[in-house]
């Protein structure tokens, strides 16, 4: 690689890192919002009122899964403006992809809860636990464990989707890259390649970390085939 290219990379590193930080913030925001909403959605679907589940949760999940992330971003960003409370691009992105992630995560948790089996709930109730306590001490700890493998997919998915926030002007990694490309001429291939490498490192290390968690919280002897396999599907 010619020396001037190396210098370019060296010089653009601070701004790329700044972008990376925003990318990480976005990802953390998506996952947290998705988790905070996704868990109650899942429990609502399994244990909640049938009417609420059919009329609210299920349509919410369907709609947020069917509409492309980019369109959701636009709806939240431009929608907030036309309703008179202007969200920052960052906030709009967090809400749009976060809600979307909650729809996906609710399906992950629902699958996990349903694979646990009614016997666990019945046994918990039989020793006098309230429904809430049973969920808290018996169902949730098991569901969270079972959710780690599919959740790893979700992590990689929203990390990659954070790049879409570029479209509404969030200065995440891709946009920082774009600025560098615009400042210097003819370096797009190199700069976007470096971006790709950074994404890859983030996906890879996140996967490794979650794999470590899965191993750490594995239940000894628990049949491996009872755990939902990490689905290969992208979502």
């Amino acid at each position: 690689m010619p020396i001037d290219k190396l210098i370019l990379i060296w010089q653009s590193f601070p701004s790329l890192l700044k972008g990376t930080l925003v990318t990480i913030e976005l990802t953390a925001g998506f996952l947290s919002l998705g988790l905070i909403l996704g868990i109650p959605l899942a429990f609502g679907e399994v244990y909640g009122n049938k009417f609420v589940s059919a009329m609210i949760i299920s349509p919410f999940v369907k709609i947020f899964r069917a509409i492309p992330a980019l369109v959701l971003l636009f709806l939240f960003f431009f929608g907030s403006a036309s309703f008179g409370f202007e969200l920052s691009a960052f906030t709009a992105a967090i809400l749009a992809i976060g809600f979307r992630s909650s729809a996906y995560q609710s399906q992950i948790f629902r699958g996990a809860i349903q694979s646990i089996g009614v016997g666990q709930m019945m046994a918990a109730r039989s020793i006098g636990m309230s429904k809430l306590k049973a969920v808290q001490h018996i169902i949730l700890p098991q569901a969270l464990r079972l959710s780690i493998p599919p959740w790893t997919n979700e992590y990689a998915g929203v990390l990659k989707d954070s790049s879409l926030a570029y479209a509404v002007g969030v200065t995440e990694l891709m946009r920082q890259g774009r600025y560098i490309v615009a400042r210097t001429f003819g370096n797009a291939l190199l700069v976007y390649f470096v971006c790709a490498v950074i994404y890859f490192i983030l996906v890879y290390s996140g996967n490794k970390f979650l794999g470590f968690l899965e191993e750490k919280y594995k239940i000894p002897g628990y049949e491996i085939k009872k755990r939902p396999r990490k689905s290969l599907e992208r979502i």
Partner: protein
Amino acid sequence: MSGIVLKAENIHKSYGGLSVLRGISFEVKRGETKVIIGPSGTGKSTLLRCINQLSPPDKGRVWLDGVEITDPKVDINKVRSSIGMVFQDFNLFAHLPVLDNVRIGLTKVKGMEKKEATDLAMEELQRVGLRDKASSYPAELSGGQQQRVSIARALAMNPKLILFDEPTSALDPELIGEVLNVMINLAKEGMTMLVVSHEMGFARSVANEIIFMEHGVIVEEGPPQQLFSNPKHKRTGEFLHKITELYGESEK
């Protein structure tokens, strides 16, 4: 307190259009073991769940130690904590080691200190002969061991009554004995038990009475000797004959 621990009166339960229990009444006295038998689908499991209200009955009343527990005003969680239940497929909490399985009801339901709960749980494990398995996970145990842990889990709550729903029918034949032995000891120690089981050896040796149920009603009820040697109803005799053939009578 009166000698009657459990009293059920005119229990009805249906699922959708299917009426499963059609007026069941009986009593269990303190220290007594009653065994319920009857063909599959007759409503035996449903009856047990109606007693601790895991499936509330549509009609009828249940009293525990003279207190009506079908009264909507009672705290049903509190009631359940004093009625043990042992399931056919154990239902041990899969993510918890054996000790925590036994202890969790003490700490999270009864609000006991961890130290005290641990001691008590270890005692109950000792009672079922599994003290050395305290740190194992359920999936690392044999079926018989799992069922004994689940009995310990029920015992730890210091129940007034334990309901057993076919506790040995998911077990390999060579593991049935260890569970029945624990139950026989409990009966001898004076635990009040209501047991759905077709282990006639067990019924003969410890049951004070056998209840024969069919199609959601009690057909006949009486001491084992009487039911075996001279049943009032033809169906009782037929059924007893059939299950004795099926399950044998070799168990202690």
